[in-house]
């Protein structure tokens, strides 16, 4: 999943990029409201972690703008001002969750997982399709009860496909979820990950739809 982190403190911003990366997300950072506006307008993020006090304005402005134009991307507010009235104002402005600084990285990751779950309408925290299960919290997967040894990128591809079983994911979509702005993408990186996954969970589980992308076969 791809997350936009809008935070102006360099140390915290770096911590979120690395920490959320370890939790299985692809993270992009911006430190100013203007950059965040451009990023949100330019591409699709699965979630946004938004600081309220930014050098060039309040994160609430961006949130209101997004909600006003019908952008439903889940937003978690991250802020030093966490008095109850501020939380209420943030939530009422369209935020999905609120976390006061300083926070626990694991809690932030758990809250983001919960937001992702809610967004896709699932109740079960573990993804299950056919004989495959994927636990986004533990970053583990099993196939027919057997534990799978998957790399971070393979897990990300599998999780993207399992979130919407039967639906096609294009190559570009998968690349977006796997790689942040500064990361070099090999020309056939997605194909390589799919190939490796098929070797572990069986050839037929992931189907190639020629010219469109990939999908995971729904159990019949």
């Amino acid at each position, binding site marked *: 999943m791809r997350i936009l982190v809008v935070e102006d403190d360099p140390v915290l911003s770096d*911590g979120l990029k690395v*920490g959320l990366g370890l939790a299985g997300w692809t993270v992009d950072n911006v430190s100013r409201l203007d950059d965040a506006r451009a990023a949100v307008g330019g591409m699709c993020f699965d979630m946004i972690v938004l600081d309220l006090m930014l050098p060039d304005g309040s994160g609430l402005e961006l949130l209101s703008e997004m909600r006003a134009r019908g952008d439903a991307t889940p937003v978690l507010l*991250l802020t*030093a001002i966490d008095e109850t009235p501020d939380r209420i104002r943030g939530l009422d402005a369209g935020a999905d969750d609120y976390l006061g600084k300083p*926070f626990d990285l694991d809690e932030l990751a758990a809250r983001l997982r919960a937001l992702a779950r809610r967004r896709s309408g699932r109740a079960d925290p573990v993804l299950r399709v056919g004989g495959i299960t994927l636990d986004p919290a533990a970053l583990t997967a099993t196939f027919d009860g057997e534990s799978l040894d998957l790399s971070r990128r393979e897990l990300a591809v599998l999780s993207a496909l399992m979130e919407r079983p039967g639906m096609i994911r294009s190559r570009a979509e998968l690349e977006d979820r796997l790689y942040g702005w500064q990361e070099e993408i090999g020309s056939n990186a997605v194909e390589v990950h799919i190939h490796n996954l098929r070797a572990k969970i069986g050839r037929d589980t992931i189907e190639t739809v020629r010219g469109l992308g990939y999908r995971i076969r729904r159990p019949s």
Partner: protein
Amino acid sequence: MTSLRRRLLMLLVAATGVVWLCAVVWIYVGSRSELEHVLDTRLQEAARMVHSLVASGNIAAAATATTMPPGGDAGYDRQLSCQIWSLDGRLLARSSGAPPETLAENNEGFATREVNGEPWRVYTIVDPAKDVRVAVGDRIGLRDRLVRDLVIGLAAPAILVIPLLGLLIWLSLRAGLKPLNAIAGEIAARDGDDMRPVAAQAAPLEIRPLIAALNGLFDKVSVARRHERDITAFAAHELRTPLAGLKTQAQIALAATDDAVRNGALRQILVSVDRTSRLARQLLALAKLEARQKSSTAGTVNVGSVLRDAMSVVQTPDGVAVEADPDLDKLNVAGEAETLQLILRNLHENAVAHMRGPGRVAWRVLPDKNGISVEDDGPGIPDDELPLVTQRFYRGRTRSLSGTGLGLTIAQMAAERLGIRLVLVNREGGLGLRGALIWAQPPKDRRKSPES
């Protein structure tokens, strides 16, 4: 406490009382002179009547003629007394009730005289042809009683009316002051956060200035409150964000299995600790400045040497050139070196921190020799933010990555303590910021510094 209603009541009642009193005095004086005139005319008439009777030879009849008939007002019985004297001084006749002592004056006309210790008003006619002198008189005491009774008759109802009038005035005041009570009630019913202006349109003309002043005060209080809230928010942000960064990086260092990731996190922790210790140092400096209202201006320090000390603790990034005018060494100012160094260090730190890439930070003596200035090649400060940057924890749109929002606050506050004016302006052409320190009393320029 003074009550407006009580005050108005007193004033109105007193004013009404004075008007009543004046009316009574006027009536008293007016009636009295009118009455004197009437009674004097009566004396004259009676004297002429008696004289004409005397002229016709009936002295006894004449003497009784002036006696009031019985059945008149008991209080005013026997008002007139008449005496008929021969010119050689024999009493020929007198009316009953008339005193045996002579009332008559030697000359004709009106006279006031004392008889038996009582003042009398007498009219005398002298008739040498008939050898008689006719004197008719009445007691002035009686006249006074008459006037007094008249005035009491008029004033008595007034005495009864005054309390009634007071009551009416009080009730009118209560009705008249109702709008004032209504507004007081409205304000009293508010809670502490309600700073909405009071509606002035519905209020009476006289209290509108009061309401306008009140609304002005509400405005000021709410601005002050917003300001306070802003500062609290800024402070929370500046204090908690580094902690959040530290905690996140520490969690990464603990959880990382990869050495590169762990080392990266530890390096970030070091950066953050450095920043946090600067924050702590600045908070302490601020607290220290706040504790002393005024810094001692005794003693003289050399600006050049203090500036060198201040610069020595600030790291200069690569590509940034720091220039200090040699004339600074000729500048000696009154004040403590410690406070001056605090100002210079924070201004220098601020200038250096805002350099984007290579450039120049230049310290100079002002052309008027009344202060010094520092210029940087940074982005400057947007004009709308200039008045705000000395507020604590305020970090504008052009904030540096490592700032705390306290540097300029400290510089400003320390300058105040030394009686120095800190002026921040953007340099012409939108390139960088210029901070000037201007001494109220011109520094002792061009004097040899003690060290050199």
